């Protein structure tokens, strides 16, 4: 590829943005992550379940929710991120982002506890837990279940 010619430019003044995101109505969720647990919400009025959890129900327009823990699912898809955005460039590992199906209404995104993408298969059963990373941010960990409970697809 031919190198692009260099053009004169000037630097803009620096803009730093950090948000204070309100969690007063989803505090159960954020506290849960610190305890290793992942919660969804279930509407006390119509029974609809929500993940990501939301304290308001657009289905029946009420705001009265139960918190329900979600703890296992099966992998629906995954990728390994070599490209890391600003905010994640200090993570040395190329993390595996995956989505697990928990129920007809609930799917969860998380980081898969596995370093070799070759060991990962769609329909793998996973445990859903959470942890706090060394930089203080929470994340959800999808942990492949032990071989004895592996999905038949894994033996292919």
């Amino acid at each position: 590829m031919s190198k692009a010619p260099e053009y004169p430019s000037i630097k803009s003044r620096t803009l730093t943005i950090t948000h204070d995101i309100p969690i007063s109505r989803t505090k159960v969720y954020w506290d849960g992550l610190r305890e290793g647990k992942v919660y969804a919400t279930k509407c006390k009025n119509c029974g609809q379940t929500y993940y990501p959890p939301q304290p308001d129900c657009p289905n029946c327009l009420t705001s009265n929710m139960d918190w329900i823990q979600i703890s296992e699912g099966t992998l629906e898809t995954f990728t390994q991120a070599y490209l890391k955005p600003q905010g994640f460039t200090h993570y040395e590992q190329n993390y595996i982002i995956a989505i697990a199906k928990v129920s007809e209404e609930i799917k969860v995104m998380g980081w898969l506890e596995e370093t070799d993408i070759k060991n990962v298969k769609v329909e793998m059963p996973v445990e859903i837990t959470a942890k706090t990373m060394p930089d203080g941010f929470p994340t959800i960990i999808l942990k492949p279940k032990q071989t004895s409970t592996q999905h038949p697809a894994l033996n292919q």
Partner: protein
Amino acid sequence: MKRVAIIGVGHSKFGVRADATYCELAFEAVKEAIEDAGITQKDIDLSVVGSVGNRLYDMYPAPSVNEYVGLTFKGPLRVEAACASGSAAIFTAYNAIKSGFAETAIAIGVEKMCEVDTPTSTAIGGRGCYLWEFHMFGTSFAAYYALFATAHMTKYGTKEEQLAKVAVKNHYYGARNPKAHFQREINVEQALKSRVICWPLKLYDCCPISDGAAAIILASEEKVKELKIQDPIWILAIGYGSDTGNLTRREDYTSIKSTRIASQMAYKMAKINPEDIDVAEVHDCFTIAEIMAYEDLGFCKKGEGGKLIDEGQTWIGGKIPVNVDGGLKAKGHPLGATGCSMIYELTKQLRNEAGNRQVPLKKYLALAHNVGMTGQYCYVTILGR
């Protein structure tokens, strides 16, 4: 109902445009569009700027763009629909004419992405659903489309070679488009050997981060007669669709549902079928997106997108030529400009002005498919002559 015509189109060179500001890029496109239409700024009633804009040094780009191109007092809004912002601008301009608010309107799609570094641009892009995805998992658009690629490959047996063939085709045509970001051919082996960005997507599966602008001037049928414009291109239909913000709330990851919704709406409105289309521009931000678009737009059966590229049916001479300007993959994808760039290319095609990339026309029907994010927005526009 009033018919709406395309009377002028303009397009800047796409690429890393360190030589120009976003206003200067918009000028390149607007100047060409105005000259193409044979009108002046005075003839334009409304200007709609389509720009994602969040990588710019300005946060409110529309007033500066309109002032710079001589359209002050014509631009009361900026529209944003992520990567479909250009189509959203055309949709807004089209509706203003349909409703009688305006006789002539311009949609200006403009984006400057390369003034910030790649991790910053990636982070801005990945923040479509910050709280439940980016915050915890460092998602990016490459990661999102990679999730679709894995699911599609697992369910339908789509191969990495088939993804690579999409890149090879689009680079082939990009090499013949002087306005494209990348103007060089690649082969399947190069694509397969390129470095992994988000597994299974590799460098050549991904569109570049680009700067650019495109502009489209629309007019009512009355205005077309008044301006004595012969044989314009007509907008026959615009269909739209949308989907959940959170990817975890999707039914599955092998299809873009909003594409199906938008295209069905557009086909019905234009009273045509997918087989009637002579040439299409589809949203190939990643190669897997082009494969899914073939299927979701009805160019082939679900799951047979890989086969369609294997057979070469989307090259010129095939059943349905797709992205013969290089697509987002090789032409580049300056977000807000892309929807207008698609209409620019299709207008040139329908006028038989596409030179060495001209598609043979049978029914003089063309389709543009512009997705925002991973289907959170979608517009399908059908043009005819």
